[in-house]
């Protein structure tokens, strides 16, 4: 449309104007005097001006490395605006307003093995900066175990998880954490920063970790299937893997003193079965007596009978009696007429379970007593979660990332996918597309401009010279943005294309005037002088008009539009400046010849 108006309407209107009179008046005009002096200055200092402009361009190319990118919508609003204030409040008081989700796909998330992998990923997320409260199905399971069995840990048997699941199955909250068929689960966390650079770094860090975890995979081992020396080897490998989890948790809750090596050393020592666990006997006695003295104890006994039974039981346990031995002793311990073989079998199993539970709890307590010395401060949540990790040393199954143990008796877990989604991914991808679009559009603009100018003028030199002002304009403009810390966003990224589009107009006008004067037989200096007078005013008038047009956007309430406005004003100024200094200087220095 603009072209049609320029080629039809403008010449028609121009036919009513007395250009000869205007030319006479123009030569006496003050702007004409300025342009005349300007052209003289350029003619005199052609090499200096060209050198300076090229030098400046090169300097600003280095400044481009400092250019930030910002694609977060949060930063679109002024600090005082309601959306921004709400987001700031959510970040300050609720650990963040932006979601981060890690998801996992396996054959069965509910298995003790998969839940351990989920917990490991969750603990890793605790170590991430600006990330809070990763939440997953493991939290439900561990919390239930804590409430029902005083043990914040993932059980090591399918049936035990099934028993806990009894309480949560059918709850609406499960749908947010686990798919119906139980093959996929997610870990939710919140991010406190909307900044693109922060989220990009976070995304890359997480992706690197997840890629490695998925590539290596996980192996599960059953302790009972192993020989004692294999079990010791497994404990050492487990200490290494679990110390990493405790280290991640420590980074979140008690950052500072403890190194992972120190944590691993203590865990390796604690993995040994010989480690003394103080008070375990008294604790075992208390737990068993509480059970035996309860009114619902399996056999109806009087208090003295229960005391006698308790004494026999403790004596047998000290000799290392297992469930079978305990069952075998029952007929001797119980009064005649009370004994029932099936009930005795159940009771023996229950008693053995309780003794094992006390032993495991004591081992974890002993380990924790040693570990907590490493940390500069204490935190209840840290202790709870660290204990959950320590309980793995007492569990019947062991899940390790592949390669941590050389034992070949393990079974590879069928984990088919671990990936992330949420704000960091979204911003990183948008940032990537923004950068790619910017580079593509600018490069395409340069190439098209160069090709068109070369074809139009039938001279590569003229083609190259005509792109100099737009290169100067865009490089200096983006360099200035980089130096004053204005990030590249959806709006400011358009500056490149728009400034090239407008800037090339000025170059075309000026070169057209210069070539015309040269064709009329004028020398290069005279052609430049005449081009200045003929085209300079139009270029300056156009630049001022466009600058005024974009300046209106300075009143916008959206930050990127305001940034775009003043950047465009600067950009037009630079484009006009380059067209009236760098371009004539280059034409004079290289003195290109148009092919006939």
């Amino acid at each position: 449309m603009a072209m049609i108006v320029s080629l039809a309407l403008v010449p028609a209107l121009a036919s009513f104007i007395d250009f000869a009179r205007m030319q006479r008046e123009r030569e006496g005009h003050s702007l004409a005097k300025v342009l005349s002096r300007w052209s003289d200055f350029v003619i005199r200092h052609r090499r200096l001006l060209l050198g300076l402009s090229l030098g400046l361009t090169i300097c600003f190319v280095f400044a481009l490395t400092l250019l930030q990118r910002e694609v977060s919508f949060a930063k679109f609003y002024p600090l005082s605006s309601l959306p921004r204030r709400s987001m700031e409040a959510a970040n300050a008081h609720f650990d963040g307003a932006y979601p981060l989700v890690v998801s996992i796909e396996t054959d069965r998330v509910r298995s003790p093995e998969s839940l351990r992998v989920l917990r490991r990923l969750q603990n890793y997320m605790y170590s991430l900066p600006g990330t809070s409260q990763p939440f997953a199905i493991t939290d439900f399971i561990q919390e239930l175990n804590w409430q029902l069995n005083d043990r914040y840990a993932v059980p090591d048997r399918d049936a035990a998880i099934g028993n806990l699941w009894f309480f949560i199955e059918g709850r609406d909250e499960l749908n947010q954490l686990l798919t119906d068929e139980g093959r996929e689960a997610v870990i939710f966390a919140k991010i406190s920063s909307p900044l693109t650079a922060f989220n990009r770094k976070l995304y890359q860090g997480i992706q690197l970790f997840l890629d490695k975890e998925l590539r290596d995979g996980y192996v599960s081992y059953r302790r009972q299937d192993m020989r004692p020396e294999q079990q010791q080897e497994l404990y050492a490998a487990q200490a290494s893997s679990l110390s990493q989890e405790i280290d991640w948790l420590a980074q979140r809750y008690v950052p500072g003193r403890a190194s992972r090596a120190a944590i691993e050393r203590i865990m390796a020592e604690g993995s040994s079965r010989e480690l003394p666990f103080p008070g375990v006997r008294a604790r075992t006695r208390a737990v068993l007596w509480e059970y035996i003295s309860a009114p619902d104890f399996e056999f109806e006994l009087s208090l003295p009978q229960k005391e006698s039974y308790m004494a026999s039981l403790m004596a047998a346990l000290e000799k290392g009696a297992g469930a079978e031995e305990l069952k075998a002793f029952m007929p001797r311990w119980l009064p005649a007429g009370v004994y029932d073989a099936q009930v005795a079998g159940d009771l023996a199993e229950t008693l053995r379970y309780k003794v094992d539970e006390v032993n495991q709890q004591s081992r974890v307590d002993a380990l924790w007593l040693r570990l907590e010395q490493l940390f500069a401060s204490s935190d209840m949540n840290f202790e709870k979660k660290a204990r959950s990790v320590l309980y793995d040393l007492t569990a019947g199954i062991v899940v390790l990332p592949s390669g941590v143990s050389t034992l070949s008796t393990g079974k590879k877990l069928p984990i088919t996918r671990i990936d992330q989604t949420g704000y960091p991914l979204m911003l990183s991808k948008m940032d990537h597309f923004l950068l790619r679009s910017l580079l593509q559009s600018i490069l395409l603009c340069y190439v098209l401009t160069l090709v068109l100018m070369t074809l139009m003028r039938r001279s590569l030199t003229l083609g190259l010279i005509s792109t100099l002002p737009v290169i100067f304009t865009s490089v200096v403009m983006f360099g200035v943005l980089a130096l004053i810390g204005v990030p590249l966003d959806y709006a400011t990224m358009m500056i490149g294309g728009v400034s090239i589009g407008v800037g090339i107009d000025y170059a075309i006008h000026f070169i057209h005037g210069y070539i015309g004067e040269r064709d009329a037989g004028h020398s290069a200096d005279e052609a430049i002088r005449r081009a200045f007078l003929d085209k300079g005013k139009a270029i300056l008038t156009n630049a001022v008009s466009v600058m005024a047009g974009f300046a209106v956007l300075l009143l916008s309430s959206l930050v990127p539009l305001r940034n775009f406005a003043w950047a465009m004003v600067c950009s037009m100024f630079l484009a006009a400046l380059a067209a009236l200094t760098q371009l004539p200087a280059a034409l004079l220095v290289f003195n290109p010849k148009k092919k006939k």
Partner: protein
Amino acid sequence: MPLIKKIVWLLLPIFCLVVSLPAADAAMVLKTMEENTMGANAPRDMETDMVMTIQDGKNVRVREIHAWSRNIAEKDDLRVLKFIAPADVKDVGFLVLDQDSMYIYLPEFHRTRRIASSSKKDPFMGSDFSYEDMGTSAFSKYYDPRMFKESDGEWQLELLRKPGADKPYARIVLTVSKANTMPVRMELYDESGRLGKVAEETAQQVGKYWIMASIKMTHVKKGTSTLLEMRNIKVDLGLKDEIFSERFLKKRGS
């Protein structure tokens, strides 16, 4: 006394009588129904197998349960449920002594736990029944009945929760069959007056008793349903007191 006043005074008692008649009928229907389900006309005790089929979209989960119950006049039923399948909940036990005394036994942890009052509204075993639904109690104790509709074969009662009654449903629309005075359908409304669940019930005659042989509970909002079917129903066995105890709850394979 002016004539109009006389007429008003004359009509007032008649009007009150007329208004109160449907309420009396509703109370009578409810009382008879409760006599059949948990009162004098119900079996003294019962032992049965149950199959619980939970339908959630395309997902179908089946639980097998063995149940014992005892009918106590003027009180809540005693009830024991033991899970038989699937394997990961085998031997899990559930004991209801009354609406405030419910226990669950977890065989994998060798522990019995009391169900907290706050958890009674939670789904039972991932089904559309809540823990409270799995217990039994007389409606008339907690709800005021009103005759809602009547057709040739059914009465429809509206039960409104009594002030202060600790019950999850504010309103129940109960349909009772005239053939056997047994419930056939219950629409359970929540606090906000929205329809939350619908229970469709089928009665079966076992000996001289009418027994609820199947209940299909549909969760209207979630679009899920649970069918609870009774099989091998045995009545009046003279079940021992020990069965309804925590000690029995711990007994495996019973």
